[in-house]
């Protein structure tokens, strides 16, 4: 029986565009794998039960909770974290807007917030403030009161829409 199940699992995936091969413990979640094994400490391990959103990363094109996905499940996946999205300049305008609007104070929630906001923005269109709030409702920020975060995301949505028209 036990030979069917492994306590260590081999995975091959790409992280921020780089191929990664690893042997991971069966119960390890993605965030611990990214942080402890790959040194990618941008996404945070916080509540570890899917409530706070600080661990939000992009897996196969969509935002996911890094704490609710096992590293063992990531075989073949394409994973992006805030580090990779920063390096490729995919979210530079969003990051600049967060700074300009004071959309972060301690910064703990910011990597997850950026990944979640980018998912909404990349869907196209110009989301309303209510739609922005709804899309970010799973990402807790204990500093800003959210208003500045919504401001930042809204300003980028409008700027990107304007660029598209030009």
């Amino acid at each position, binding site marked *: 029986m036990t030979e*069917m199940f492994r306590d260590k699992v081999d995975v091959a995936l790409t992280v921020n565009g780089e191929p990664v091969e690893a042997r991971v413990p069966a119960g390890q979640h993605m965030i*611990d794998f990214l942080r402890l094994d790959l040194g990618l400490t941008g996404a945070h391990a916080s509540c*570890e039960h*899917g409530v706070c959103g600080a661990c939000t990363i992009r897996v196969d094109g969509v935002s996911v*909770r890094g704490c609710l996905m*096992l590293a063992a499940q990531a075989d073949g996946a394409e994973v992006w974290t805030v580090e990779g999205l920063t390096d490729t300049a995919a979210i530079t305008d969003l990051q600049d807007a967060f700074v300009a609007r004071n959309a972060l104070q301690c910064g703990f929630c910011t990597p997850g917030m950026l990944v979640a906001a980018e998912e909404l923005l990349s869907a196209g269109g110009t989301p309303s403030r209510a739609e922005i709030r709804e899309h970010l409702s799973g990402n807790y920020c204990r500093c800003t009161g959210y208003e500045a975060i919504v401001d930042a995301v809204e300003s980028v949505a409008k700027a990107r829409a304007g660029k598209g028209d030009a």
Partner: protein
Amino acid sequence: MKASAAGYARAENLRHAIEMLVASEGEGRVLAGGQSLVAAMNMRLSAGDLLVDISRLNELSGVSQEGDTVRIGALTRHAQVGADPIVRARVPLLAAAVAHIAHAAIRNRGTIGGALAHADPAAEFPACALALGAEIHVEGPEGDRSIPAEDFFEDVFTTALEEDEILTALSVPAAETGEVQLIEEVARRSGDYALAGLCLVRRAKGHRVALFSVGPKPILATGAMTALDAGDVDGAVAALTSEIDPPSDTQASAAYRRHLAGVLLRRAVARLEGDRT
């Protein structure tokens, strides 16, 4: 906290998954989207499981319509259920429910089969299945069987699934012309578990009302259904509040939940009537 798993195996196909469940002798645990299971593992509410990962079984994913029945594969993710054109047109209750389920990142990964098999009494999809009169399809070592939603949900996190069975799909009757399907819920914040929730379906042959987060399992409010069929809304609210026995917890008292159930029924009926005009 950190999860503790005794082992992990990736299923190659459904047969393989069932063989592994049988071989695990009761220690096996089916892993699909993981949005409840991994959280429970991290909190050590579930520890030492032998995980059977079925999330790669593409044959269990997707929506199809055959005649008057819509079949939704167990691994169809919440976001896919919400966006699917067949679901939106023919099972609008499920599409509407998706907006109430957790948050975008969780809807991207959680699966409808997982939500049904997990049977959280506060979850939307189990109550939807009940209101729609869905059939739940499962497969085990002896083959497949179908279980009516009314017999599937037994208690808190407890269903008619046997230890070595896997939920493979649900099928629901496609909405007939003029059918209306509505969901109403009250939660403290967007994405939170409902304090109380209600699904209302109106078909030519009568109303169906199912509630969630007001008891140990989703509840079909047959008394309220009979009263609605007779056009008696006050009677339906009275019946509804007497046929549920909601719990008190840190989120809401039993009395408040009972009150909310009546409010939600009135809201849903008001929307029905708005729809008719």
